[in-house]
């Protein structure tokens, strides 16, 4: 089975996500980048599941749980971003500097 291709895709998506988290200034884009990382993990899990031929389909089930948890996290994250936008009229992470040394 073509496992390497899937793993490379997963790793590339994950790296793109990390890059996005580190460079994006808008909190919504940071959130999207994290979702990209989680998608990479899902690809890994499902690919490994098929490779191993897991009878319990553990990898697929794990991927389902990750999707559900990710949705909940997006809900929480958007709520927080919305709150900040209401108070500050901006969703830039750079401008959050009230709590510094």
């Amino acid at each position, binding site marked *: 089975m073509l496992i390497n291709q899937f793993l490379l895709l997963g790793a590339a998506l994950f790296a793109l996500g990390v890059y996005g988290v580190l460079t994006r200034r808008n909190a919504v884009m940071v959130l999207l980048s994290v979702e990209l990382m989680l998608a990479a993990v899902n690809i890994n899990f499902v690919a490994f599941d098929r490779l191993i031929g897991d009878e319990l389909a553990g990898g697929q089930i794990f991927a*389902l749980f990750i*999707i*559900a948890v990710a*949705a*909940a996290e997006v809900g929480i994250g958007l709520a927080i971003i919305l709150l900040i936008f209401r108070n500050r009229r*901006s969703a830039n992470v750079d401008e959050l500097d009230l709590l510094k040394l």
Partner: protein
Amino acid sequence: MTLADYLPIALMLILGVGFAAVMMLASWRLGPNRPTPEKLAPYECGIVPLQEPVERFPVKFYIVAMLFVIFDVELIFLFAWAVRFDQFGWAGIGAMAIFVALLIETLVYVWKRGALDWNVASRERYRRVVAPDAEVAPREAA
């Protein structure tokens, strides 16, 4: 792997950080530094924006969208269950009934809290009637 095996990683880190530091230090010490207001301004395409663009979507879109995504995604557990539900018997049906009951309770909560109310006027009413003690917070000075 022992602790000594981490030495190359540590060296790599020191080299990487050191290289960046040296380059930044060099450009700061060696480069000519004649700032003008134009040079200091952040680079933007086109005209300097005078103000933040206005809010494009009413907030209620977000709330409804978030609720939709969450309830929608919870359904995936039904798919996993549906593949094998004939083997679980009544215990499986009972377990899924509990799961759905939890979702229904959440829906009732969301409904009662007025999150599904599109009409702002009735949201005001809900503030007065359902949650009279949940006042809007006084905004503190930064």
